[in-house]
């Protein structure tokens, strides 16, 4: 189901609004986010300073990215790890398949990785005869249902527990039908038992990496379930996949980012497990993978680095912007029609897939600014969405009617006298039409607004008139 249909955002959104299960799940996410985030950030007076520090770390790293990538590579190689540089999704898929084949692998256990979604890795491995099992609880549920994640850190947030129970009953055919499976505890237990065998049987473990540490050659992987730790330790071969912007210079830098990551993502102080791993098992170790491979992927990042969208490379994939976004909260992640939904998706998807395939996403914003307010890396998401709108407009990708409307407005707005006259006439007319109620229940050309709420009628005067009145004759409106 990894089809890309960002251009059908409106239809997707309408479907999402009519989906009662989805609406209930999204309402709960928004409620939880509103209550948990202030608590956890409020407990840490240094939170804002830590955000500033994390931004400085990432900006510095990006400005010297070539150096830190080379340093990371050298240190990982010194620890016995292999680095596979890959320019695009095809190259990364092939590199991973080749490692699996060389290892004689039949089964692959996977930790949660958004980059693997980005390159549609599972499809490729399955098509080439490998068994692939997602081990993160949410991702496992989605794999059974043939769905894609709808949130960066809560991939199955769009599902109700009853839907999950149905899925387990359908696929875990050895389940006793009389066994209660009503509560998340029972379902988690069921998944734990099934996946435990898969962990132990997997020949290759594939994980993402939250960070790469240049000075040590380490990867940092955070999970709550412990699946990240098991996926990278039990199989003979561990493959980690990461894009180039994941590197940070030093361990201390990684620790600073860790202090804001979980707090922003799930409202926890820190995730249960933060594993910093450096290369394969050592000669005297009694467990751990015999081989360690790091697939280092560009996939459009160097393009972002060179231009006005560089700041989006600071993203640590915490999902805070999604949880806080009213548009995401109304339609969910799938409506965005790609791997990344919500505000971060609206900025990333046009870069990764081309603005011609995703111009609808930056349009899907009220520009309320919530995303930028909560982004731990202070990425100016509304500003970047606005830039994509400019680009889409210049390339005539947006609807002709929208362009015509904007052209008319621009023509008028460049003629102040005409603009003021128009504004005065409109305000006066609307005031009269609005009558005593002072509201419109419907209005021609404004059906998009009035179909769900009333439009307050203007009170008569225009802004410019009021400006002159209150600032006196000397005031000059700018």
């Amino acid at each position, binding site marked *: 189901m990894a089809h890309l249909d960002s251009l059908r955002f409106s239809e997707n959104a309408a479907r999402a609004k009519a989906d009662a299960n989805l609406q209930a*799940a999204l309402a709960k996410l928004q409620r939880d986010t509103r209550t948990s985030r202030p608590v956890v950030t409020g407990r*840490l007076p*240094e939170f804002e300073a830590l955000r500033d520090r994390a931004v400085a*770390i990432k900006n*510095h790293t990006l*400005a*010297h*990215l*070539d*150096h830190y*990538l080379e340093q990371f590579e050298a240190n990982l190689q*010194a620890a016995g790890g292999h680095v596979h*540089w890959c320019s695009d999704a095809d190259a990364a898929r092939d590199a991973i398949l080749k490692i699996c084949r060389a290892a004689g692998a039949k089964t692959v256990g996977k930790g949660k990785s958004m980059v693997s979604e980005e390159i549609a890795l599972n499809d490729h491995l399955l098509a080439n005869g490998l068994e692939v099992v997602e081990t*993160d*609880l*949410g991702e496992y*549920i989605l794999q059974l249902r043939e769905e894609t994640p709808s949130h960066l850190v*809560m991939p199955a947030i769009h*599902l109700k*527990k009853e839907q999950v129970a149905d899925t387990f009953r359908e696929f875990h055919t050895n389940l006793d039908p009389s066994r209660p499976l009503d*509560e998340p*505890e029972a379902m*988690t237990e069921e*998944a734990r038992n099934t*996946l*435990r065998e898969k*962990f*132990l049987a997997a020949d290759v473990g594939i994980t993402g990496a939250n960070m790469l540490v240049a000075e*040590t050659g*380490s990867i940092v992987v955070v999970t*709550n*379930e*412990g*699946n990240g*730790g*098991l996926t990278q*330790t039990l199989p003979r071969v561990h493959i980690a996949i990461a894009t180039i912007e994941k590197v940070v210079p*030093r361990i*201390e830098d990684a*620790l*600073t980012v860790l*202090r804001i990551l979980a707090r922003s993502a*799930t409202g926890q*102080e*820190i*995730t*249960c*497990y933060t*594993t910093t*791993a*450096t*290369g394969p*098992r050592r000669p*005297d170790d*009694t*467990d*751990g993978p015999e081989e360690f491979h790091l697939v280092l992927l560009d996939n459009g990042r*160097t393009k972002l*680095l*060179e231009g006005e969208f560089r700041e989006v490379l600071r993203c640590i994939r915490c999902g805070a912007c999604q949880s806080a976004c009213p548009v995401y909260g109304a339609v969910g992640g799938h409506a965005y029609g790609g791997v990344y939904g919500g505000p971060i998706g609206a900025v990333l998807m046009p870069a990764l897939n081309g603005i011609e395939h995703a111009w609808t996403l930056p349009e899907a914003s009220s520009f309320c600014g919530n995303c930028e307010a909560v982004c731990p890396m202070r990425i100016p998401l509304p500003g970047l969405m606005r830039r994509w709108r400019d680009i889409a407009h210049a390339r005539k990708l947006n609807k002709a009617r929208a362009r015509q409307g904007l052209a008319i407005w621009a023509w008028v707005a460049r003629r102040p006298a005409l603009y003021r006259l128009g504004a005065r006439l409109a305000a006066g007319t609307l005031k009269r039409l609005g009558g005593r109620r002072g509201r419109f229940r419907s209005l021609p050309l404004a059906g998009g607004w009035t179909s769900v709420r009333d439009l307050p009628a203007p009170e008569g005067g225009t802004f410019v008139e009021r400006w002159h009145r209150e600032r006196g004759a000397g005031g000059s409106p700018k």
Partner: protein
Amino acid sequence: MSARDDILGRVRGALGRTGAAAPPPVPEYANAALVPERAKGPPAALVARFIDMAEEVSATVDRVAQRGDVAAAIAAWLDREGLPRRIAMSPDPALESCGWDGVADLDIRRGPTAGDDPVSVTPAVAGVAETGSLMVASGPRTPYTLNFLPDTHIAVLDAGRIVGGYEDAWAGMRPNGETGAALPRTVTLITGPSRSSDIERTVTIGVHGPRRLHIVIVGTADGEEAV
């Protein structure tokens, strides 16, 4: 040209440079770690905070006066929790002086686990007061699997190893700035038993990692009263 050269070339192009990167100047912020206030304080306060924070994330904490008391405390706890007196233990000499011989009917196996051991006992390198996290490192005497596969993980931690922040724990791990193979293969911060909230955001304890995390703190920190 290799993909490596391609990517590094594109990075340099994007940064407006040609040729190899000179090592960047050490950024100003690198001279002073931004460590939260809650990670600071005298040793006794850090021990108290460590315990508070660990219990907040559903770990349980026990205290014993000396290393020789650890075995008896663990056996008593296993009995209280209704758990079998059967443990898989890190083959770490530091754990041998825990008084195992003094406890009858305790079945001890030393080495990594393949997933069929109900309870593990491992040493912890450090305790981090900031978030109640344990630092564990893998090595010949400390198999990684013992921290993840058993249903119950018991960690033995010296009170003197409880530090304030993550940086302090890492400084102890790499006193000479070790890199690459000079580091343990894994260094893990463990904060409470494993959990998930993937189904309707309901927190469920015990997913792929342990369902229980029990921390036995040995001895006292400076300024603490005897246990």
